[in-house]
């Protein structure tokens, strides 16, 4: 089976517009999460990591006919393609887009017509983005709740492994709007303070805006030192809006991802958890890590920096994780103070230097879906 290398990337978030910018700020514990008083989104103030739209977009007129969601993805992919070391043939490249809600905010700003429905549809965005980059292949679109980003990486990895494509561009984004915020508020899932993953006092998530791009390639010449070595997906078959109580199903996905990557639990040096900050998600994840005997492995959640960026989360967090591998540096879990789950897992609270050869990244979401990937140093 072909090796799959990560050859370029970008994170576009309220924290920064490049991966390096984001990573350097994370090292200084900079968070994008702030208290917002935005009546058009919510009657009550809320914590979230949101773009300042007036600062965000450049004046490239070509991009003006795109929506905010599409602009985010296009800008992120453009940044990732700027990397001088890569010179990929876009004709042999597959684009995979990951998003939960895409253009849904258009419902709030535009008149409801049949054309609007077509404009909102993710396939319209994907076609426009693909045309912008003059890609030849029909793009793939993954909309699978909070595991969308990891599922996109797993799908991209497999497309290269089976020899179907030499390169895959994986880009994800979600925009926070009243639609999304009011939905999570109706679930009582939004934290009243900055989120506190795995903490005793945790009480919910903060939403975040962001886009991210990972370019994968089988071409070692342009390859970095990090591979996507394996991945797996499972379903809880338990509840549509609550995670498994046991964590057995995420545990299964972790075991299969490790098997796929040809590593055992002894080889995992670092875990980047989903760690949303909700009572049930974090408890379930702790159970899953414990079942795989990973409770002593240094683990963090990045939700305290970016918030939950939905369709971008898996991609943003995978990029930060492999930057951690490159720099052998584990970031602390912002917001965490005292362990508040029943299994004794090892949550990182300080910036730690540690050799990382293999990293496990997990995610879970509505619909009972779980995903895990393993990234390895070549």
């Amino acid at each position: 089976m072909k090796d799959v290398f990560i050859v370029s990337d970008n994170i576009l978030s309220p924290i920064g517009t490049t991966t390096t910018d984001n990573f350097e700020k994370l090292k200084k514990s900079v968070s994008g999460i702030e208290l917002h008083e935005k009546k058009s989104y919510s009657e009550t103030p809320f914590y979230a990591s949101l773009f300042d739209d007036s600062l965000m977009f450049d004046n490239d007129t070509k991009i003006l006919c795109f929506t905010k969601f599409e602009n985010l993805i296009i800008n992120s992919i453009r940044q990732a393609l700027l990397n001088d070391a890569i010179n990929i043939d876009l004709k042999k490249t597959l684009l995979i887009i990951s998003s939960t809600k895409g253009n849904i905010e258009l419902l709030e700003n535009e008149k409801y017509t049949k054309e609007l429905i077509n404009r909102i549809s993710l396939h319209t965005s994907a076609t426009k983005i693909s045309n912008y980059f003059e890609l030849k292949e029909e793009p793939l679109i993954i909309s699978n709740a909070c595991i969308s980003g990891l599922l996109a990486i797993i799908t991209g990895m497999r497309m290269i492994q089976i020899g179907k494509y030499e390169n895959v561009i994986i880009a994800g984004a979600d925009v926070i709007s009243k639609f999304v915020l009011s939905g999570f508020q109706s679930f009582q899932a939004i934290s009243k303070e900055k989120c506190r993953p795995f903490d005793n006092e945790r009480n919910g998530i903060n939403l975040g805006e962001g886009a991210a791009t990972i370019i994968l390639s089988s071409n070692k010449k342009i390859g970095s030192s990090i591979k996507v070595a394996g991945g797996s997906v499972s379903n809880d078959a338990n509840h549509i809006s609550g995670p498994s109580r046991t964590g057995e199903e995420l545990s299964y996905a972790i075991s299969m991802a490790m098997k796929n990557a040809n590593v055992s639990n002894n080889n995992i040096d670092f875990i980047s958890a989903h760690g949303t900050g909700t009572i049930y998600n974090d408890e379930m994840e702790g159970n899953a890590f414990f079942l795989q005997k990973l409770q002593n492995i240094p683990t963090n959640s990045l939700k305290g920096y970016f918030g939950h960026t939905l369709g971008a989360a898996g991609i943003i967090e995978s990029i930060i994780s492999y930057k951690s591998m490159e720099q052998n540096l584990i970031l602390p879990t912002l917001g965490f103070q005292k362990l508040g789950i029943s299994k004794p897992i090892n949550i990182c609270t300080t910036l730690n230097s540690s050799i990382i050869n293999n990293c496990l990244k997990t995610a879970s979401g509505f619909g009972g879906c779980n995903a895990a990937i393993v990234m390895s140093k070549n």
Partner: protein
Amino acid sequence: MILDLNITSSCLIKKDSVYLNGKKLFSYLDTASTNFLLSAYRFFEMNYPKFYKMDNLCKLGWLASEILLKESFVKDKYVPEEIGVVLLNKNSSLNTDLKFYQTINEIPSPSLFVYTLPNIVIGEICIRNNFKGETAFFIFKKFNSEFIQQYVNNLFNNNILQACICGWVEFMDDDYKAVLLLIEKDKSSISKPFTIFNINKMYH
């Protein structure tokens, strides 16, 4: 090794009719799609109270999966982790998104919000049948048999799945269609090879 997989069952729901393995089992002439879904539920004498809570996309996908599996599927041949679901559609959960959107200026409805993700229909099928294997939801402008065949083949070739429900579930107002295929390794008296040609035949 490339395996020769088989379509061991197929269910098509379109234009007020339900077909199992090409045979029409039910039709109901009513202009409203929601009435049709409920009539089909009653006609097949299903008993699953959760059905009433589902949005239309889930009702449609769940019904199709029940009919797909009701005759020939022997679940006990597999462990739950070996059975997966891979679905595609065109408009994601947009039909329910519009309904949820109507509530957000008054009291946003959590029971609608949960259905504003397309993969919830996969969750409902998994809960019903205790399927715990790989699942995925993709958005395509049009039904894409080539992608389905390639993606599902790969899941079998890599020994990730031993059985898979795959296909298309789209619900937008009164424009709805579900085409579900059950893919297994073993042949049966009614099975057909899992080829792009056969997938397309079942869609139309």
